[in-house]
């Protein structure tokens, strides 16, 4: 059985999973991610993965955000 409370990059989650943001990796996109509402403590729901496997769409707050897996991996979440 997988560890239920492990911290993983957001890009690793599957569609339908819920998680809480733990931290953002510092990088080029950190500010962009934050202004889109991706902040530590926020709850997210992985709404869909694009049919080709990338990008993904997540529900955060009251809206749907789509981002590439590469970008999502800068967001660390706890399942």
């Amino acid at each position: 059985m997988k560890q239920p409370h492990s911290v993983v990059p957001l890009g690793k989650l599957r569609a339908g999973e819920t998680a809480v943001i733990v931290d953002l990796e510092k990088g080029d996109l950190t500010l962009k991610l934050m202004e889109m509402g991706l902040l530590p403590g926020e709850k997210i729901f992985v709404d869909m993965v694009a049919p080709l496997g990338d990008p993904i769409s997540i529900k955060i707050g009251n809206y749907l955000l789509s981002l590439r897996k590469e970008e999502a991996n800068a967001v660390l979440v706890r399942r």
Partner: protein
Amino acid sequence: MKNIKIALIGNPNCGKSSLFNALTGLRQKVGNFAGITVDKKTGYLQLSRELNAHVIDLPGTYSLYPRRIDEFITFDVLLNPDNPSHPDVVVIVADASNLKRNLLFCSQIIDLKIPSIIALNMVDVARKNGLAIDTLQLAVDLGVKVIHINAREGKGIHDLKRAIQTAIPVPERYFVEVKPLCPEVINGIKDITGVKSDYTAFQIACHYINIFCFNVEQKGKIKQLLERHQFPMAKLQGEEILKRYEKINPILERCTSQDQSKQQALDTTAKIDRILLHPVYGYLIFLLIFYLVFQAIFSWAAYPMDAIGAGFSWMQEALNKNLPQNLVTNLLVEGVLAGIGGIIVFIPQIMLLFGFISILEDTGYMTRVSFLMDRLMRKVGMSGKSTLPLVSGLACAVPAIMSTRGIENWKDRIITIMVTPLMSCSARLPVYALLISFIVPDERLFGIMNLKGLVMLGLYLLGWAMSLLVALVMKWIIKAKEKSYYLMELPIYRRPRWGNVGITMVEKAKVFVMDAGKVIITISIILWFLASFGPGTAFTDIERKYADLQPAGHATKTETEDIIKSEKLGASFAGRIGHFIEPAIRPLGFDWKIGIALITSFAAREVFVGTMSTIYSVGSTADSDFEAIRDRMRKEIDPITKKPVYSAATSFSLMIFFAFAMQCMSTVSVVRRETKSWKWPLIQMAYMTGLAYAASLLVYQLFK
């Protein structure tokens, strides 16, 4: 009469454009910000008898941390008092259904200390999602006026106008105090630049290099100041955002109440997404919708285009008949009028395409197309948003290239612009149709498949393949100006706003005629000159020769006129150039006559057919004469090799040439308009001509 400047700002998808349209209607103008390709939309609004307003619609942005060129524009307009668009009043449009993220941006604008007012939009959507908002409390907490509007239905616009008329104060208090983050730097910058707001000073510290028109001395001082205090920009910006959200959260708790059981708008959208983003149905629907768009600009647009063409022919004929036959008439009819016709003829395609784009964007479907296609397009150096321009390029590159405005990333956009003209457009069809008949017999394969149709399909696929290949190469060559990122909101599905669709269609047509028109007219006149004049006495010699012959009467009058026309074209400057380049195009299997047609068909590819009919003097270019041209061309014998000129190898080589060569002045002109320089259209013309030459050479030498 007093004039004020109002700026509309807000997140993408917050309904800013709807508000702009509701405020200004058709009294708007789309231009460019100086030197770059971001649309500058301005409009005019009469607020009262004493008060006029210029409204500027700034590009949508999520925050004041500019990364892309369009975000820098918004930033510069707001922070730089010397910017000609610097507003007296800022209307911040906020999406109520997405309040938290929108308030981040609102709070930043408030801290710039510019007179501001918030137009709270999409309260209806918020309500469907179970969110109730206490607007009065919100205004108290933010320290600025908040007006409810429904931009789609035009509600609350009157209240907003009235609020703007009353003097709007500068926000009294800071939403977030940034001074504690770096007091020395902020005070220092206020001393150097004279700005009043702490937050403006903070932003200057972060971005002074890129945009501010401070003098060298000031910039030097700022640089020293930042170095002295080792200004940790990224860290402080992060802290600033966190501080803002820390303050926004309790405000949201005070001002809103969420009924968790109701998330209707979002739920409906999620349900629709299950179908539209489905691995099978999703792509089927995508193909269907794009096929419809393609059909519209390929087939539906043909009716008005034919009518426009016929209208201009009629006008040309009428003018020729009724005006004295001289140089001025000739210039007017064959040069100017033909040029104007060549511009107007694009309007149906442009309007139809942008009508569809506007609907697709309004409903929220366009972002889903990116979602479906991004991974695939990414591989060849483009983005999901390049899909529509490429598909539209199958009908016509001109509107297709105009539609690349939607691609935010500079490199993705340039690559898309560079390869779109390789898609087989409708203007190539008549050329292919003429040439295919020299290679392919009118037969069917296995009794069902039309051979000509198969060759045509092959040419289309060739265009596709080459555009992807070139994109792949350019991905390695072109250097990125900024790192590409995708990150975007998937807006909820909504009904299109027909008023907006109409305004977009009219605006795009206007922009094309005004901006691309000049270049098209100029090139058209140059081409007219080249084909209508010859060096020295060449033309008068021909006229004299036939004037002497005419009494002999071995030909009818029109036949003689056709022959004179043909000989004149041969003797014209264009003809001379055709002769001159013959050695260069011989290896491709082309003679000087084809050379002339290559020059004249730079106006538009289909002109090739018309020029051929003039050269082989088969008279006017009405459709009924298509077969006459073909038969005449088939009989043409090369004086050197004594074989038919239009052998399979030459015809094939010529088709390949037309598949890859630029051969379209309107595309050149629109690329210049969209890239704001001659650099890219010239590079494009060079690479496409080079590619066409090499490919034709290869084909001819192989099949000869």
